[in-house]
């Protein structure tokens, strides 16, 4: 599996090592990954993609584990992409989400992949989207994408999903206020996990109040659960299904995927342009020189931008 052709062949035969390697290539931004995926894009879009997000320690992996069990009982093939933060200092990461899913570790119908956020700009959602496509091609019926719900890159990842579940825990208080701006708007269903802890009801109430203030046609439901004891999971799953059927009405599903595709394409453009710009900034764009001129007031940033754009786009033909 050294070339896009040989890997693609193995992938078409359903070899799981091919899926694994394809995701590795995507994570490394290796062009071979995109070659394999573009050739097969028409065959994707079949899987249901569920996002599971929430602050660290909220029990996302335990919940994901419970969902895998449920989906397996229905005979589905399940893919899981578990994203954990990379250390900005060392570039290393410890990805520990599998620990919660050990029960499924030898189930051939469950494919679990851990990913570090790594450093690259916009690269996370690009790699995640590619990983989703890879698992989709592998025949996963449902793909669960688990991310720590902080920061723009994770929010971007959630936009790719058909439904996003936000996992909250009691006692977040101010933190709910803090994260609401970015994260609240991508949540389709909310759960308050660890509802055996004090303050669970209050957290749920506060969430509902917040969601009442600002929502469109769909007011995200809030369910209280205890994932470790499998309590409330039926209600949570029903809420997800209710959202799916709501979304299936009219052309909502199409519209959602359209928005997500648009977001993805714009994201790809952004990262490609940035990459191009950073690759050529030293010798072609001479960014430092422009900055020096601006600093000395010999040039203004707006005209500098025009110069940069002219160079960049002429270079791309």
């Amino acid at each position, binding site marked *: 599996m050294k070339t896009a052709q040989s890997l693609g062949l193995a992938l078409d035969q359903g070899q799981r090592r091919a899926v694994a390697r394809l995701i590795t290539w995507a994570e490394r931004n290796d062009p071979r990954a995109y070659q394999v995926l573009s050739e097969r894009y028409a065959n994707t879009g079949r899987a249901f993609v569920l996002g599971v997000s929430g602050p660290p*320690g909220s029990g996302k992996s*335990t919940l994901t584990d419970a969902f895998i069990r449920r989906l397996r009982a229905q005979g589905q093939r399940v893919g899981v992409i578990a994203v954990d933060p990379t250390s900005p200092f060392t570039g290393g990461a*410890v990805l*520990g989400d599998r*620990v*919660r899913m050990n029960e499924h570790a030898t189930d051939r119908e469950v494919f679990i992949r851990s990913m570090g956020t790594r450093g690259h700009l916009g690269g996370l959602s690009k790699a995640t989207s590619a990983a989703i496509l890879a698992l989709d091609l592998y025949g996963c019926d449902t793909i669960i994408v688990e991310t720590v719900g902080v920061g723009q890159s994770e929010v971007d990842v959630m936009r790719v999903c058909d439904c996003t579940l936000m996992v909250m825990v009691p006692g977040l208080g101010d933190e709910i206020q803090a994260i609401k701006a970015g994260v609240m708007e991508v949540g389709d269903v909310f759960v308050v996990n660890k509802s055996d802890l004090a303050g669970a009801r209050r957290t749920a109430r506060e969430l509902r109040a917040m969601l009442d203030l600002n929502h469109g046609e769909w007011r995200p439901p809030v369910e209280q659960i205890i994932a*470790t004891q499998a309590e409330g999971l039926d209600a949570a799953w029903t809420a997800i299904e209710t959202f799916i059927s709501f979304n299936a009405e009219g052309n909502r599903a199409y519209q959602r995927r359209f928005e997500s595709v648009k977001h993805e394409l714009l994201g790809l453009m952004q990262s490609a342009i940035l990459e191009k710009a950073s690759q050529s900034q030293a010798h072609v764009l001479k960014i430092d020189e422009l900055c020096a001129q601006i600093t000395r007031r010999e040039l203004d940033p707006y005209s500098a931008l025009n110069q940069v754009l002219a160079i960049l786009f002429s270079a791309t033909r």
Partner: protein
Amino acid sequence: MSDSKETLGAQTQPHYLDESLAEYQAQVDKVNARFPERKQEFTTGSGDSIQRLYTPKDLEAQPNAFDYEQDLGFPGQYPFTRGVQPTMYRGRLWTMRMYAGFGTAEESNARYKYLVSQGSSGLSVAFDLPTQIGYDSDHDLAEGEVGKVGVAIDSLADMEVLFDGIPLDQVSTSMTINAPASVLLAMYIAVGEKQGVPASKLRGTIQNDILKEYIARGTYIFPTAPSMRLITDIFEYCASDVPLWNTISISGYHIREAGSTAAQELGFTIANGVAYVEAALKAGLDIDLFAPRLSFFFNAHNDFLEEIAKFRAARRIWARLMKERFGAKNPKSWALKFHTQTGGSTLTAQQPDNNIVRVAIQTLAAVLGGTQSLHTNSKDEALALPTESAVQVALRTQQIVAHESGVANTVDPLAGSYYIEAKTSELEEAALAYIKRIDDLGGSPKAIDAGYIQDEIMDAAYDHQKLVESQERIVVGMNKYIVEEPPPSGLLKVDLSVGERQKEKIAAIKASRNQEQVTDCLTAIRQACEGEENVMPLILEAVKAYATLGEICGVMREVFGEYQQSVSL
């Protein structure tokens, strides 16, 4: 304004030593100028800063100035800092209890008889991992593990062989068993009955400390809540039926082995103790009935003086907690009794003979700290299970300390040392801070679920590792004074056929027992687990019917579920 405040602050009583201390300081400065000290900062084995010199002034520091009667008292008296018995080792030496067990019950039985013949005064049973995790030897997960780190026990038949020829009314037996403790205790009671020894005469200890399994040792089975319930069932049962039995050994040993500091060992272990007391109180038990049967288990690490202070601090903290926080009235509830094991993680695979010296120093620390019983590690334990000759040297080390060193002839000889007393108070304070933090998190089980305790230990372990690798901490023979040495020879090998032999035994037992009786017993256990009935008497019936450990734990697994590890890195 600020002037007057400063003057006020400076106006604390001049100390009678101030002048001579200043003189000493001048002398130190002079010497330091010519011969600087070896390091900028000296630290204990746990990384705490340590002063050049301790003087009476260190004991008088406000607001907790040292007070002999309040802080030490007399041996056998509250707060027990100087020891739990009035005469300590002048009356009776500590129990020399060597942890042993491997292979089949037959092989371990032979080792126990050897230990008793060599002067070992108590037995300590090591079980293999499948037994500790509630799997029979024929379970898939037991593959390759049967008889490896301890003896394999599948049914009462194995237990009968294990204690064959050992009169249970004459030995005290410690069993390192936690998640399935009730099953192994039931088997022990059943063996006693067969020998004609009533349960009321059995003496010994089960470790039964599940919280530290979640934290550090890893042989858990069930989730926190049912595990705590099984433990309180044992407390209740033993209070009435096995009154001389120590129902739990709340263990700091493994927490320390996992890399904690001395203060963490104290703080986390005692916080676990608090959780067990609270669980038992919640189950409606009378504190003065169960608390006297609680015992502790600590590590004796390398920093000699710090360790002695640690043991003394442990007694004082526990006494104060039991009396003041829980309102225990019985002095036996206040007294913290403990077993000690020398620190396994301090042993090196390199130049293993050096380990004998480490163990000797650790033995001295445990004895000077007032331990009730002691296991000394053998020199080859960084490499494999110990051989008989290595075990003998380890036992002899205790005997030399007991009979030749003279440290057992007077009680708590280091009391009153400025450093020891200052360090004892410092460790008490640090441990109490951890206990407070854990209380704030909702108690030990919650703090464990949140990964707090594991994180703290891991940070300390990683710091230690970095210090060793940078040679800021010297480990003789490992990162300094290294020699080329031939690979070690003569290590103990456990026969691979143990697993096969155990499987055959299980098959034979299952073929010969009354299956209907077994099924009834297991059903009764299931119902008790689902409800609130004390499960101990039912487990006793089941083991007598030769239900296997795996069958009993299997039923409980079905009712209780299994614990999910909380990962901290």
